[in-house]
């Protein structure tokens, strides 16, 4: 935990880091939802509302029955608030955590602080797990705070037309608490291994995007599914993701070598 603590303290002391983080979370969880939902709420019988109504009609019964609202506008607002914006909850933490994680080990090497860690009694698995926690926490924290604000915005903008506060739905709770954390962990377990192997932070960021993109696509689909059908399947998906994350983390922790923390390996 000492490793994670030092990294987190360092990250949160760095304005260069947390100001873009807050801007990104604020944009996706507050600004875009607020304007989108306010705009939809003010529309009556527009083409957009008609299109959303048609789409809902084509969805499976279990999903279309879950769409609340008496009027077409209210149902369109519900669809946008609950279904369309759901995957944001995956994109934000993955992007933030990937940015931190990609620099985690190669950054130690570039700064020279890896030399201190390499000569320390910390086990490489402790260093790996510390880095993983320090990369996961900012992304998840931003998501949790952003999600809370998102819930308030949704309830304030859409809630009145649906008879009161209704958000978060069961699917969203499963997503936030049970499904998102292992997906971040899966991405980070791979990103940290890349971070240990590449020669520069720039290369690490390039490589991490190759890992993050497919995971975002998969998790986007999973998130949409969990929110639309928040039954046992969501719990199962989360459980499987936790097992995969656990295996990848264990593998990653065992493969980190101490010499990866040092400067140029051939330096004598």
């Amino acid at each position, binding site marked *: 935990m000492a490793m994670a603590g030092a990294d987190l*303290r360092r990250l949160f002391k760095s304005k260069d880091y947390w100001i873009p983080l807050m801007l990104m979370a604020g944009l996706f969880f507050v600004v875009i939802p607020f304007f989108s939902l306010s705009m939809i709420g003010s529309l009556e019988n527009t083409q957009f509302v008609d299109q959303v109504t048609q789409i809902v009609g084509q969805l499976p019964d279990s999903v279309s029955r879950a769409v609340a609202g008496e009027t077409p506008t209210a149902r369109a607002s519900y669809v946008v608030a609950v279904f369309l914006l759901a995957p944001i909850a995956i994109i934000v933490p993955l992007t933030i955590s990937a940015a931190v994680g990609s620099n985690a080990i190669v950054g130690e090497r570039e700064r020279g*602080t890896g030399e*201190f860690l*390499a*000569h320390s009694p910390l086990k490489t698995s402790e260093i790996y797990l510390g880095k993983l926690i320090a990369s996961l926490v900012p992304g998840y924290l931003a998501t949790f705070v952003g999600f809370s604000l998102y819930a308030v915005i949704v309830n304030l903008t859409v809630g009145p037309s649906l008879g009161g506060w209704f958000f978060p739905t069961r699917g969203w709770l499963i997503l936030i608490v049970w499904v998102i954390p292992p997906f971040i962990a899966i991405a980070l377990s791979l990103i940290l291994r890349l971070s240990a192997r590449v020669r520069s932070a720039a290369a690490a960021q390039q490589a991490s995007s190759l890992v993050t993109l497919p995971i975002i696509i998969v998790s986007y689909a999973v998130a949409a599914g969990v929110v639309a059908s928040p039954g046992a399947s969501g719990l199962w998906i989360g459980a499987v993701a936790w097992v995969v994350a656990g295996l990848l983390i264990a593998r990653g922790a065992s493969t980190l070598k*101490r*010499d990866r*923390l040092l400067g140029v390996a*051939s330096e*004598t």
Partner: protein
Amino acid sequence: MKSEMDPAIRFSAVTKVFGRIRAVESLDFVAPVGAVTVLLGPNGAGKTTTVRLTTGALVADHGNIEVLGLHPKTDGDEIRRRTGVVPPKPAFYDQLTGWENLQFAARIFAGTEAAAHDAAERFAIEDALDQEVGGYSTGMRTRLALARAVIHDPEVLLLDEPTAGLDPESARSVLNLIAELASRGRSIVLCTHLLHEAEGIADHVVLMSEGHARAAGPPKELASRYMPDPIIIFDAENRQSLNQLADFEGVIDIQWNGGIHATLKDLDRLPDLIAGLVDGGARLTRVEPLVPTLEELYFEMQRSHREQDA
């Protein structure tokens, strides 16, 4: 000081290769317990790799390493708990304060906050502990690195070019601190290519070159091995009278260097030489044996090995 039979560090035929670069090759040396051992050699001699192999940060390809009777490959965690390292360019988390960096080190080395305070005080860095390390000067960073390295009171301290980039005053104070640690019974390994740095504090010298230990031993022993013939410094009011030394029996070589440095076959000849010089009209002002500096020894060892290699 304990004997060489009881080493803090022992390298036996150790080889470490990076691609096509043989960083250390068949390296043998011993760093005695409670002594200051100086790894002396030019850049690229393999000193940093040797430090990294000692703590197990790097794993040797061949050979055997013992540190405090333990093996880095299997007992690395225990060795790292009992050693402290000051790297050539000490790096810190620059956004954190000096105190936060020391706290981090105390946590991972199972040291206490009291020990962190003591270390900061000993290295005269306590007044800057509230500042972010990013604003530290090179000298402050080195002092913080030294404080960090001794926070857990290590039995072995490995210092890799600890005075690199320091002004002479700061460098001297760092060397004094190293000498103070040595006086408290710690085993110290100091890597340097600066000969004057090792002068006076080295109990044991290992001359490294191209990954090999070319020679090792206490400076006096090395001096008697590489500079076996006694050298006497003569000076006189009438210096020209000293030229007659070249004709005296038992004088191997003379060189003007302020006075005359006369290399003798043996010291038994000295009374006859003095008497001869006085009889020859020399008004002597100085007759004293030359104690070779580490620098003179170093270059003599290098010359000797070049001749052997040739």
